[in-house]
């Protein structure tokens, strides 16, 4: 089962490089995604046996994050199929500067997309910290060409920044992993491997100084990938310049994978009794990210960048939830699910808007509801969802986190949390409402654009899921969330 | 006896109210060195007006026609609540002083909208002034009444005035004087008397009240004049209740005292109108706010433990 989860997308990636026919290749993407999702759903029923001497284990957190990734990828694969059909290899005129550019070969794009899935799956499943790190690095490498799909200088800049910043970050994470290795070298036991269960078992015997340094390094390292401020700087560029479907995957799935990376280290630290050490750090990064995002969301002029900063905000919330501990950890888990669904939905809707209006500038878009009714509804719903309005799921998770803060008597943090959320709400509301409502500007009104099935269905499905999660959390999901939270110091 | 007293009170009010206007005019004539009209002239005027036909503006609708009727009805309803001297009010219940004040608001409301119904700029002007001044007069009046109510511990006009006694004067003198002055100002303002308004001039620009009824004629105007007379009487009666709380035990004696006070009040108004000039319009609000301030001081004297 575990091998299948990893190798099927990997094999499909290789296969897609060989296939000549565009249609078959697109079908392959969708098919692989469907098979992957099916496998994950089966794993819900049956579970999966550990493989590779405990290096690959499908524990509760892995199942949770894998499910998010898989569902998201399925939605995005359908969208991508439609997207690729519309972007076929001709020269395209850049709407921003009027330059001409071509897209990367579709085969490369497809292969990278599938490899991306394979590496993300590997990230979720790895229990060995070094393997985890390798997987994480592989996701960077697989996704960099995806960001550079449109071959023009802005996306190149974005890809370059992504590559360099994430590589630096991931290098630090490697150093952190080494430090854990050093920390475990102090122990008197024989088994000095970096397998998570082993580390947790020997938690109390680890060298604390090195473990602390390791925590810092991995936090900074994976934090870079996850998008915690001030390490997040690649994120707005990459999200705004890559194709929307890739932005959706980056924001919805990749950030979670990096989050899982941090969570694995958190597990080790918890076992070593370092809770008081890492929790303030996570709170600090969380609040900093939220504040930073707020600064850039207020008065933001580019809607895809706005969504990207919103991702910075939400990873901040995720970190904050873990930092607060107790009930907030559960909130954080729920938040990860909801944020992924919502943000992916928003990016896909943003892609539709981009396609119809040919601009990413907020001030040039108005009347989406009129021009693209479905997208307009999704855009508004997504806005309400992402800002934590009921009845969408994010409300519940943010409520849970705020609840834990207040119950712990951390009023300052709670006030900052809610205050920044309100600021962000104000910033996003002014942009989203302006775009969705109003009438279509006359100069863009003639351009015809029909909303196709593949462009509406995936975000719609994701939106419906967040809505449902806001009104009803199925008991099985609830149980899984609680079990995952229990692994990270919550309940 | 009680019912008889009530009936006499009501009839007295309805019948004698125009007389006060006659007395005022007579006094003013005296000071001007004229012989002046008879004190019963208002009755003749009313009679004449009720005999006449009417001219209506083409602009005006039923609101214009309803205004005088509802105004008179509300003044008459207010008369039901007002005791005079030893004579009881027709209706008395806790809190009737609030109803009393608000019935005048009803009167004012319809007077104002019927003025606006003509579409005349002059009447609009009068209406605007009326609502502005009354907005200030109303708190002064209610707070003054509140002071008296707090002092006596009653909230019904009848009970307040029957429990006030001349013997209260040594103790509550300052309060009663303050409330008296404040209510007096409200009395002058509400009845469009100098120094707030000048019923004599017919320069429309300077007027408040009179200008609102420029377009009325015939029975409607008669009703308006009669309403004004009732208002004068009723507010005078409030002043009488506060300033001359004579309770000898003899109903007729008490009532006579009150009636004498009313006549005196009319003379006084005449004297004021003969000897004073009208205030500048912009200074009227200060006067009314001053009245409210006096009421507040009175209230403080009563409740604030300063008494």
């Amino acid at each position: 089962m575990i091998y299948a989860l990893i190798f099927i997308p990997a094999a499909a990636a290789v296969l897609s490089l060989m296939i000549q026919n565009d249609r078959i290749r697109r079908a392959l993407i969708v098919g692989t995604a469907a098979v992957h999702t099916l496998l994950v759903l089966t794993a819900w029923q049956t579970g999966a046996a550990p493989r590779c001497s405990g290096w690959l284990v499908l524990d509760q957190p892995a199942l949770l994050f894998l499910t998010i990734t898989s569902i998201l990828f399925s939605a995005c694969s359908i969208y991508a199929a439609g997207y690729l059909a519309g972007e076929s290899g001709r020269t395209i005129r850049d709407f921003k500067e009027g330059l001409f550019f071509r897209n990367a070969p579709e085969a490369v794009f497809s292969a990278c997309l599938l490899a991306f899935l394979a590496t993300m799956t590997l990230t979720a499943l790895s229990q060995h910290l070094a393997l985890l790190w390798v997987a994480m690095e592989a996701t960077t490498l697989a996704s960099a060409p995806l960001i550079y799909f449109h071959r023009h200088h802005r996306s190149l800049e974005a890809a370059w920044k992504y590559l360099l910043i994430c590589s630096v970050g991931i290098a630090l994470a490697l150093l952190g992993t080494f430090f854990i290795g050093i920390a475990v070298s102090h122990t008197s036991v024989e088994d000095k491997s970096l397998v998570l269960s082993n580390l947790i078992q020997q938690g109390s015997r680890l060298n604390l100084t090195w473990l602390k340094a390791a925590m810092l390094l991995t936090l900074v390292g994976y934090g870079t990938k996850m998008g915690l401020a001030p390490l997040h700087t690649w994120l707005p560029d990459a999200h705004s310049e890559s194709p929307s479907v890739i932005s959706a995957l980056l924001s919805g799935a990749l950030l979670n994978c990096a989050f899982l990376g941090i969570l694995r280290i958190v597990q080790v630290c918890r076992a070593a009794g370092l809770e008081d050490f890492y929790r303030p750090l996570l709170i600090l990064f969380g609040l900093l990210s939220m504040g930073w995002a707020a600064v850039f969301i207020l008065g933001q002029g580019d809607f895809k960048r706005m969504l990207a900063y919103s991702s910075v905000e939400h990873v901040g919330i995720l970190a904050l939830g873990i930092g607060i501990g107790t009930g907030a950890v559960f909130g954080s888990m729920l938040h990860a699910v909801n944020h992924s669904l919502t943000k992916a939905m928003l990016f896909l809707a943003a892609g539709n808007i981009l396609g119809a209006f040919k601009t990413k500038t907020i001030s040039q878009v108005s009347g989406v509801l009129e021009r693209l009714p479905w997208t307009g509804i999704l855009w508004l719903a997504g806005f309400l969802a992402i800002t934590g309005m009921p009845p969408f799921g994010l409300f519940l998770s943010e409520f849970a986190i705020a609840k834990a803060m207040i119950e712990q008597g951390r009023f300052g943090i709670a006030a900052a949390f809610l205050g920044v959320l309100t600021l962000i709400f104000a910033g996003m509301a002014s942009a989203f409402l302006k775009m969705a409502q109003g009438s279509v500007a006359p100069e863009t009104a003639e351009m015809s654009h029909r909303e196709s099935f593949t462009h509406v269905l995936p975000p719609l499905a994701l939106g419906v899921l967040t809505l449902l999660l806001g009104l009803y959390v199925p008991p099985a999901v609830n149980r899984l969330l609680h079990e995952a939270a229990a692994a990270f110091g919550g309940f | 006896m009680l019912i008889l007293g009530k009936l006499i009170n009501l009839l007295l009010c309805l019948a004698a109210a125009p007389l006060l206007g006659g007395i005022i005019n007579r006094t003013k004539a005296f000071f001007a060195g004229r012989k002046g009209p008879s004190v019963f002239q208002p009755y003749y005027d009313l009679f004449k007006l009720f005999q006449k036909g009417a001219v209506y503006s083409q602009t005006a609708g039923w609101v214009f026609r309803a205004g005088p009727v509802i105004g008179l009805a509300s003044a008459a309803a207010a008369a039901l609540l007002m005791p005079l001297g030893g004579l009881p009010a027709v209706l008395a219940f806790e809190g009737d002083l609030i109803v009393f004040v608000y019935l005048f608001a009803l009167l004012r409301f319809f007077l104002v909208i019927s003025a606006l119904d003509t579409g005349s700029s002059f009447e609009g002007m009068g209406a605007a002034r009326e609502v502005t001044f009354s907005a200030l007069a109303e708190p002064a009046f209610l707070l003054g009444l509140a002071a008296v109510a707090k002092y006596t511990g009653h909230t019904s006009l009848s009970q307040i005035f029957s429990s006030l006694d001349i013997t209260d004067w040594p103790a509550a003198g300052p309060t009663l004087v303050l409330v008296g002055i404040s209510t007096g100002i409200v009395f002058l303002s509400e009845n469009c008397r100098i120094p707030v308004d000048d019923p004599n001039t017919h320069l429309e620009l300077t007027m408040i009240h009179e200008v609102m009824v420029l377009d009325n004629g015939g029975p409607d105007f008669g009703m308006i004049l009669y309403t004004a007379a009732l208002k004068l009487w009723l507010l005078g009666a409030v002043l009488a209740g506060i300033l001359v709380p004579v309770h000898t035990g003899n109903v007729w004696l008490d009532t006579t005292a009150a009636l004498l006070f009313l006549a005196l009040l009319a003379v006084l108004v005449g004297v004021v109108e003969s000897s004073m000039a009208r205030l500048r319009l912009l200074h009227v609000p200060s006067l009314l706010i001053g009245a409210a301030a006096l009421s507040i001081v009175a209230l403080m004297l009563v409740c604030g433990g300063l008494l």
Partner: protein
Amino acid sequence: MNSAVDLILIFLILSNLALLGLSRLGACIRVAALQGVALGLLPLFLVESGPAAHQLFFSALLIGLKGIVFPWLLTVVLREIQVQREIEPFIGYGSSLAFGTVFLIVSLWLGSRLPLPASMQSGLIVPSAFFTIMSGFFLIIARKKALTQVLGYLVLENGIYAFGAALSENQPVLIELGILLDLFAAAFVMGIAVFHINREFEHIDTDKLSGLRT
């Protein structure tokens, strides 16, 4: 034994200082290559009982990569883009060296705070590794050319590898494998990126790569 390790580590420190002070890109590439070779040798001297077979293999691989493949790759790029030296860096070469000494002090302090387990002998290994990492960071931050930044990244990786080498006794192969994979892929992809940058912008000043902001 220890003296050999110390020698390598001191060479590491000196080469870092050289990288901070050199302006010619070609020279920088060569220094970095030498650094790589030195690091490749490091694990062989760290192990008391003499190097095992797999260690020899990985050392050879590493030396091959760092000493030959990357320098070659970068030189090709260098020739392609026809740039000889870094002109007008953000921070001048004199100041860079001054920063270098500060980094050295900080690294020594960090080394004192993070003592290695007794089995790992050399006291210099932690400070010199930290110093290498800091130098790598500094190169990325203070220089403008994309090529120098790739170089800085390689130096950073060298520093990390120094730690890895210290661990090679206790930890399985995977770490080394990971390093190699990472190095190879990262350098490869970045090399390609530099090509693209050159083609797209007709220079590799990252100065111009700041169109995406706020």
